[in-house]
């Protein structure tokens, strides 16, 4: 696997579509070559309800270059499993993850695209994504003549950026995209607990975050002291969330250039 990654690397697209909660933003590589700049924003577009002709209007905005799509975490299912020992053989590892998934996931795993990543000696992050949704996205792009070379997730991309910060990474971050929130707790930049929840009001967000922090304290014996809020779009009063976090003695960290964290690293 390591040798594969060393030799074979994939071209990163020059253009990205971030598909959020019923909206999408189109980003193109900035002229300076550093990062991406938002060029278009389209509201009231649901990925699930989108059809080929509807996507045709969007496709017209896209330039004819390789394109990537970054989805928020609403359609992704994250699990972090801890094992006594993780085997090196990919087959065994896959069987082990599937066995653990079957215990916690009520649906048929075969309907999902399963990917898993070894986080450290004992933990594996598993990501499930509905195969039918993936095919739907690929069909939309293909039928409109757009080359889709990247299909990723915003939370994973953020994790990849934060892991580079190591000790400077926040102990948890909350990614907010309208009503969808996802809180990710990190140790040395690596996730150990991930939770998604939906909340439309600031008070509800605060309540859910408080519950989550208490759960982490009880289950992982860790007390997070720093936090970053990664906001895509939000109608809630964010200062309420920040204030409540401060009351819990959690220091908010403003990460430089964090709006670029949803895009994959250039290799």
């Amino acid at each position, binding site marked *: 696997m390591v040798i594969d*990654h060393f030799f074979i*690397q994939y071209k990163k697209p020059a253009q990205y579509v971030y598909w959020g909660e019923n909206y999408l933003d189109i980003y193109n590589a900035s002229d300076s070559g550093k990062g991406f700049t938002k060029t278009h924003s389209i509201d009231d577009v649901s990925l699930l309800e989108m059809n080929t002709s509807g996507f045709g209007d969007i496709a017209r905005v896209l330039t004819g270059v390789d394109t990537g799509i970054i989805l928020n975490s609403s359609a992704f299912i994250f699990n972090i499993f801890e094992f006594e020992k993780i085997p090196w053989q990919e087959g065994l590892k896959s069987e082990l993850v599937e066995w653990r998934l079957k215990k916690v996931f009520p649906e048929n795993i075969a309907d999902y695209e399963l990917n898993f990543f070894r986080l450290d000696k004992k933990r594996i992050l598993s990501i499930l994504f509905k195969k039918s949704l993936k095919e739907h996205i690929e069909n939309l792009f293909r039928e409109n003549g757009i080359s889709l070379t*990247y299909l990723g997730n915003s939370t994973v991309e953020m994790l990849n950026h934060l892991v580079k910060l190591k000790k400077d990474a926040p102990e948890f971050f909350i990614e907010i995209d309208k009503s969808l929130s996802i809180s990710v707790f990190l140790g040395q930049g690596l996730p150990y607990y991930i939770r998604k929840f939906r909340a439309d009001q600031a008070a509800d967000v605060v309540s859910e975050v408080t519950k989550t922090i208490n759960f982490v304290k009880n289950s992982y014996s860790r007390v997070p002291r720093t936090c970053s809020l990664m906001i895509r779009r939000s109608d809630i009063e964010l200062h309420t969330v920040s204030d409540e976090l401060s009351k819990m003695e959690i220091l908010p960290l403003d990460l430089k250039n964090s709006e670029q964290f949803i895009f994959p690293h250039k290799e």
Partner: protein
Amino acid sequence: MKIRYNIAKNKKINYLRFFLLTGVLLVISIGFILVGVKTLSASAKQFRNKKNELKICQEEKEAKTKKNKEQKKEIEKIKKKWKGKRGFANGLVNNKTFPFLEKLDKIEELLPAGVFIRDITLSTKSGANIQFNLAAISSSKLLEAYNMFSDYNLVISREELRDGLYNATMKIKLVTKK
């Protein structure tokens, strides 16, 4: 640790990077191979020289072994020759006249006065029996002679009185020095 999560079906391989990386690795590998070949050829040359030296040493050894064998053969020949000569010399020593005289001297020394030898038969071999006839003027002189020779395996075969003399035929064994 980076999570490489991209589930798109049509990922595009960065061939430029791939070929550049492969090229760099290839150049490094060729470099290593060249260095290896050079080192090996130097070692092979050294090995050949050593092998030649060894061959020369082996040839020298073989020549020396051959010479050694020849010398051993020569020594054996000389030994054989010397053995023959020694045997002959020993024969000469054994057959020299001196033991004769010594034996006769001894017999003369042992003979008491009034006893004389009429005839004697003796051998040059050490330890061989000596046969002789004695004549004594009296029987007591003859007995005296018997006493003198009694320590030398004396065997008396005949006694007679003839012509007024006491004759006796006897055998003794005298061991003489070579």
